[in-house]
């Protein structure tokens, strides 16, 4: 400990470079703001009111300086063993500077759009941004006044971001939680309002006044609503972080066996009851959204086994989805080339069979490949499958570009599943099965073989893992789950077209599991709900969906390769190197409690 004292006494702080850093961040933020303006996002999002009279587009534009100010105000990284400078006015100043830089960049763009017509090249740089109509970028004001307001807001919000860094950790977290809750509830307005209305109609619980209190007629959060939510979230978070409580998990583990079992059954029953009521409460539209998300969830759980567990990056995953859909269509549609018109359940064994065989066919040739080559070959397989389904050559069987129509509905005894609400239950059973299979496989012998293979194939093989079986079984299990997804997709839509089986589906599923957290079921579920469900709910996002997906993939790989809800083991693997480095540092310079805590904090 003496060494620490000496080092701390020197109080050495690396040469301050906060100024250039803030300006650089500000310019990046300005570039982002200009980008979302010129590609039409701000305008497309300005139709949805979010908070009071603030539209989603404006909120997007104004969230930039807040974020940039927050990042710029972050205390500088300090070498292990040195004390960090206390947060103070410097952080706020950095935020202000960054906000100013962003604002100036955006203001230059506004002047450019106001004085020249660049629409010939940039299609979405419409006059509505600055000159005519709503004048989104200048908040409906004249150019001069609008620019002033814009700059002022940017500087103020940048400063606010910086102030957040000065607050003590607990308060900062509480403020961020409040912001998150307000933004989330505002964005989820269609869903929240529908759920509250549904509860009132179905369960006769008086929830309508709550809706009217929280939301304006326009669908935006009302001012009292904002205040209530923010205050509630702030206080709750503050209370939750008041004393160091044991995490819920360890508390549960300390309970006696019997009560743990009872608790588990009770939780399961409650969840099942809630989910059983869900489609009735949320109505047909939201059920439809959940159904689409559910089909993607099935695929994501399957790909999670292939990529997350076994570490085989499969970019042609959509091929198995297509195989499932086409098998169902061929067997259940009276119009198809097979023309038997079976009921759905009779087709299911054949879906499993077809998917498993195609999994084997893709898996066998690539047994010797690893990593990126494997990804490209599977991508090739996926494209070959789509091109064959679409080709005139196989038209007599698969219907070419016209696809197959009149795919049979699912029937349960005498009941035909036609409504989205009813379909939800069927889908839910399949998802539950897939999730159960994932958990069961995770702890099984083959699951451990997959994970060993993911970590190091050569070592796994040397330890007696049968690589051939492990790889092929991963491909087959993944293919069968995607096949189920395809089968349900075909019967839900009622027809099958080759255009639905684009490579973009594979990428969507990949984004879902990477953002959610590879090899982690809760992560995959949450990822699907947010990344697939939300764009269905807020249609404005549709056009920018893949742009956001691409940006998310890059961001996740740079900052959080293990995903938002990671599986512990996978995260360890990805950070092995860092851990080794840290250990080396710790061995070299004795650690101090404060810096260690800072390092653990996710940013």
């Amino acid at each position, binding site marked *: 400990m003496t060494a620490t004292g000496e080092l701390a006494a020197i109080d050495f702080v690396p040469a301050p470079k906060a100024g250039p850093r803030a300006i650089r961040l500000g310019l990046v933020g300005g570039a982002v703001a200009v*980008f979302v303006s010129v*590609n*039409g*996002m701000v305008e497309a999002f300005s139709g949805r009111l979010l908070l009071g009279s603030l539209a989603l587009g404006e909120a997007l534009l104004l969230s930039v300086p807040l974020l940039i100010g927050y990042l710029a105000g972050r205390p500088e990284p300090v070498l292990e063993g040195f004390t960090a400078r206390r947060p103070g006015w410097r952080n706020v100043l950095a935020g202000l500077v960054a906000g100013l830089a962003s604002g100036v960049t955006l203001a230059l763009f506004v002047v450019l759009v106001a004085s020249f017509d660049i629409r010939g*090249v*940039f*299609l*979405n740089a419409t006059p509505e941004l600055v000159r005519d109509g709503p004048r989104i970028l200048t908040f409906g004001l004249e150019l001069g006044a609008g620019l002033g307001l814009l700059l002022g807001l940017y500087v103020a919000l940048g400063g606010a971001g910086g102030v957040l860094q000065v607050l003590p950790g607990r308060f900062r977290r509480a403020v961020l939680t409040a912001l998150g809750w307000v933004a989330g509830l505002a964005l989820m307005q269609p869903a929240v309002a529908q759920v509250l209305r549904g509860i009132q109609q179905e369960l006769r619980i008086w929830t309508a006044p709550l809706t009217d209190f929280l939301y304006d007629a326009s669908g935006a959060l009302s001012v009292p609503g904002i205040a209530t939510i923010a205050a509630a979230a702030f206080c709750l978070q503050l209370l939750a972080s008041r004393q160091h409580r044991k995490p819920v998990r360890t508390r549960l583990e300390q309970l006696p066996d019997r009560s743990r079992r009872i608790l588990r059954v009770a939780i399961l029953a409650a969840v099942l009851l809630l989910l059983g009521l869900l489609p009735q409460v949320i109505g047909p539209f939201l059920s439809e959204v959940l159904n689409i998300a559910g089909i993607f969830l099935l695929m994501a759980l399957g790909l999670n086994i292939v990529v997350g567990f076994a*570490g085989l*990056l499969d970019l042609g995953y959509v091929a198995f989805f297509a195989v499932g859909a086409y098998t169902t269509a061929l067997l259940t549609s009276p119009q198809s080339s097979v023309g038997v018109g079976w009921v759905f359940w009779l087709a299911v064994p054949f879906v499993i069979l077809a998917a498993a065989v195609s999994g084997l066919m893709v898996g*066998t*040739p*690539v*047994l*010797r*490949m*690893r*990593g*990126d*080559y494997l*990804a*490209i*070959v599977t*991508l*090739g*397989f996926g*494209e*070959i499958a789509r*091109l*064959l389904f*679409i*080709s*005139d*050559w196989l038209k007599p069987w698969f219907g070419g570009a016209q696809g197959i129509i009149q795919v049979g509905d699912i029937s349960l005894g005498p009941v035909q599943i036609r409504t989205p609400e009813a379909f939800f239950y069927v889908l839910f059973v399949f998802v539950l099965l897939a999730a159960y299979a994932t958990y069961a496989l995770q702890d099984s012998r083959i699951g451990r073989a997959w994970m060993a293979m993911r970590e190091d*194939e*050569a070592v796994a093989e040397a330890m*007696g893992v*049968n690589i*051939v*079986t492990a790889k092929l079984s991963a491909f087959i299990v993944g293919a069968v789950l995607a096949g189920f997804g395809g089968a349900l997709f075909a019967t839900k839509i009622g027809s099958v077209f080759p255009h639905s089986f684009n*490579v973009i589906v594979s*990428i969507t599923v*990949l*984004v879902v599991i*990477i953002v959610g957290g590879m090899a982690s079921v809760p992560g995959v579920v949450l990822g699907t709900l947010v990344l697939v469900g939300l764009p269905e709910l807020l249609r404005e996002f549709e056009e*920018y969906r*893949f*742009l956001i*997906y*691409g*940006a*998310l*993939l*890059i961001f*996740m*790989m*740079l900052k959080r*390769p293990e995903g938002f809800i990671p599986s512990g083991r996978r995260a360890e*693997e990805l950070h092995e*190197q860092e851990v080794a480095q840290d250990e080396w540092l710790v061995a070299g310079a004795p650690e101090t409690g404060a810096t260690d805590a800072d390092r653990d904090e996710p940013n």
Partner: protein
Amino acid sequence: MARTNLVPPGPVVGKRAFQLPIVDGFLWLVRIAAIALILVGATRSIASARLSGQQWRDLVVFGIAQGSVYALVALGYTMVYGVLRFINFAHGEVFMIGAMTGYFVTDGLARTALWEAAPFLSLFIALICCMTVSALVALLLERVAYRPLRGAPRLIPFITAIGASFFLQYTMASLFGTSVKSYPEVEVLTGSFTLLGFRVLRVHLLVIVAALVIMAGLYLYVEKTKAGKAMRAVSEDQETAKLMGINVDRTIARVFGVGGAMAGAAGLLFGLVFQNVFFLSGFLPGIKAFTAAVLGGIGNIPGAAVGGLTLGMVESMGPSLVLVGLGIPAAHQLKDVVAFVTLVLVLIFRPTGILGERVSEDRG
């Protein structure tokens, strides 16, 4: 005898001995089936004489022109792979951005007097613009997305590259619209002439010559200049290169820049041949160019040229030669299937490529 047997009896050995032959046998079956199909298709379609000699020669010329575009794009893949052992999945989009830039520049120039007066000068201006923009995009990509991940597990930069690819595609879509953009007509490049019995479209000649000149320039750059030497050194051994005083970061950035410039040039040539471009134009050519790079031996610069030309020929002749012979209707629709099947077969059976020096480390 039993005592000298060095192989310990055990489950592992038993399984290996039992299972690998099945896999190998399957792969051999695929190999034999592929060769048999190609032979049967080729003999039958040649015997049927459905296409005249003139048509075959047209296909050859088209294949070479298309192949030189692939070769230029493949250079970017191969150079980056040689240095970083990393597949830059977004390279196809760099190419597409070059083609887009070419559209905007030629479209702008076509409205000026220069276009009629000095068409080659205006095309040269367009070429410079395309190369610059693509190189800048590639540099930006390297700086923002790839450099921070150097040394990360291999799949991580690859997934980043997939993200970058889609980000660039949809950035172009949202900035410039999703419509297909048509290149303006170039007066001097219309029409054809006959050379040694081959009917050559002028635009094809321009593409082939331009690609040859650019590739020769690149070859000289890599072989003769100091920067090129640094690139070769870095691809040989990064650590040692660093010790020898080579700025590794700058060299890698330069590799991306040069590769991007090649892709930009390819983009313009692609636009001149196919006349139109839109935001998804980079995906298929990108994957095909990667196939070309692997076909020629990835990491190998002359290999990229060889692979590009081979793939161009396979793609232009394959459908007519093999698929028509097998009696498949509408074979031209399956042009991309031929390319993908080539990709799969090459990666499975000959990942070392034609000029088979094994640059990559063991892939198992």
